[in-house]
């Protein structure tokens, strides 16, 4: 079966995000009341697996081992059958 996988990678709460900080500041200068802005990454791909459980396990493993850096990032994995 083919599954669509979406991995959202975000900075851990306590990690400084200079890019998010600067972006929020410019939005504020443009007149928007944006605050606590954090910039993350979204990674999408397709995955072949026998069932949804195994697809999720594999996707989690990929996130853990490569897509996110556990030292400073967290991730969330969504798996949907095509």
């Amino acid at each position, binding site marked *: 079966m083919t599954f669509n996988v979406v991995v959202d990678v975000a900075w*851990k*709460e*306590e*990690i*400084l*995000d*200079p890019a998010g*900080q*600067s972006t929020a500041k410019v939005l504020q200068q443009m007149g928007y009341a944006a605050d606590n802005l954090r910039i993350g990454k979204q990674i999408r791909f397709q995955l072949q697996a026998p069932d949804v459980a195994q697809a999720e396990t594999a996707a989690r493993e990929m996130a853990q081992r490569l897509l996110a*850096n556990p*030292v*400073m990032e967290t991730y969330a994995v969504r798996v949907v059958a095509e």
Partner: protein
Amino acid sequence: MNYQDVGLTAQEFAMICDKLGRTPNALELGLFGVLWSEHCSYKSSKNLLADLPHEGSAVVQGPGENAGVVRLNDAIHVAFKVESHNHPSYVEPVQGAATGVGGILRDIVAMGARPIALADSLRFGTDAASQSLRHAVVEGVGAYGNAIGIPTVTGEVAYASGYEKNPLVNVMAVGLLPAERPISARGAKPGSYLVLLGQPTGRDGIHGASLLASQDFGEGTEHMRPTVQVGDPFMGKLLMEATLEAVGTGLLDSVQDLGAAGLTSAIAELAYRSEVGATVWLDQVPCREPGMTPYEIMLSETQERMLLVVRPSNMEQIIQIVAHWELPYQVIGVITGEKVLTIATEEDPAAAVVAPDVLAGACPLKPVPQDWAAEVRKTAEISPEFTPLTWEREWGLEVLGSLDCMSRAPIYQRYDSMILTHTVWGPDHSLAVLTVKGVEEGLAVAVRGPGRYAARDAYSGGMAAVARVLALLASQGAVPLGLTDGINAGNPDKESVFRDLMALLAGIGDASRAFGVPVTGGNVSLHNETHGEPIWPTAVIGAVGRHPHPLRPVLDAPETSGLDIVWINPSGDAALGGSVFESLRQETTAYPRPDLARLAETYRVISSVAQSADHLTAIRPVEDGGLFVALSRALLASPPSLGMTVELSADTAASQLFTEVAGQFLVFCPPETAGRLESAFGQWPGAFMRLGRVTGDGTLTIAAKKSVHYGRVELERTYARGYRG
């Protein structure tokens, strides 16, 4: 919390209780823990460092400040220092390397100097994981240097399996300041405010530099991983501009950057050096995260922060500057006359009360054995010498295309080496030559740290590190102004490691004395070991020299055919100990101990030839890979039509082509200059050899009984892609 939790020994704890006349509370214990850590106190190395020569005619400021300062001319001084960020770069290579660059730049800025150049010295393992690590570290060095706009003008990299889990990331920064500017970390006066500038404080890297860099990696260190410090070169740029503008007004008492151990170290050092006290209102420190404890605030290693000491009457002007650069700032305390550091919070106005000289100046130092210097200088054990009896054409390519010798372009092209428009020679040469705007003299900047040479005999390796870097300056006729030493080694509590450390420093000390060049400061990084395996003791030496004519560097490759090719090898020895050639054959014999007096004389002659060089003469120090690599690189840097033919005796060819003994130079010159060199070096057997001639056939030809040819394309490809790459 007890003393073990903060990394103190029972003896140190007893001493603290004794000095305070009481038991320290938890916060105080935390402060002692970081400031008396290896990383902040240099307790294992300070007594050894004291033996290095610090005095010299060009020295304005020796060790003990944020950076050393030397005199370029009557109007301009040069601040420079090397610093390591080894442990953080292994934990998180991009951010670890980036924050390392940010940290050393802030050291230079804290001296009131505008940074003008960076140089990096990197060590990695040889496995695949190490190559990804290198990729990330280079990304990090570039990410910070490129964005803040300081060119990375030179550097070096080397590989050995011992660095696999302990990569080295040493970065040197160089800055300029007007001669009349006072050195600024010791001028704090009672009544002046402590103004904290820059990034709000988070829980970043608590214990990062201090504890992490003061212990070995192993099973038990995973939980110690602190919150990774993230570098923000954008904020770094604003902080640099604001600080330099504020320093330029002459209205600041003092400046101190925040690095390892954050506020604790900054305030304690500042008060200690200025011989004052301070009261810090901890609730005033702007925090990025809610609920931070006094301990966390005092120990946070959040990057891009600077502490300014400002008299109340000057506040308005300084704040105006800070506001222009849109930097967050806050008055967080005041300097007091009584030499006491008080940390005050709303609940507890005396949360911590300690004398700065106890905190920053009383950590017991590791004693060194009485006659350590004589002990480590004893003749090296004789290891069986490795001497090939033949030589093969293929060996040249193997060495040229080895990790240690091949082109560094894939690294340095990721660094902006040209911004600020003073880079006359950048990273495609062996050292950097920079112009200094408005004056005739320029700067020669070089960095070398040959760990391989110290693998078997750290004393020899220490001498060789200094000899290597100063050879580069000599080849330009540049006058060395000062050295900075980046010492990297394993766990100093082990006798073998400490012995190597003593030997390494004795070597550096003896060599810098022999060459008459002072060491004006540096950095020591210990505990570079994993599972009990230490790295090679690695001394990264940075040098700054006064270049007499930076707009016209002395050539390092011939530009016309017909020149003589001269090999200067003052020792006349061609031992392969410590060479790349030897390491490719899995051998490690001791690096031949340099004859320092002879090297000093050699550098004087080479420097004077360089200073009076005609436009034809090219001089190139022989470095990693030996003569073969020096010839190949010179060929590749010369016009495509040129070639070289050299003759060697068949039975010694391999040793001569690949030896890395100290003090060798390759000179391409007209016969008159060759004659001058011959009369200068003829006194030492084998020191002068006329090897051959620059030809017009585009080929490197080595005649040793039979003639062996290397085409330019073959050499170019091997140098660029590696052996058989």
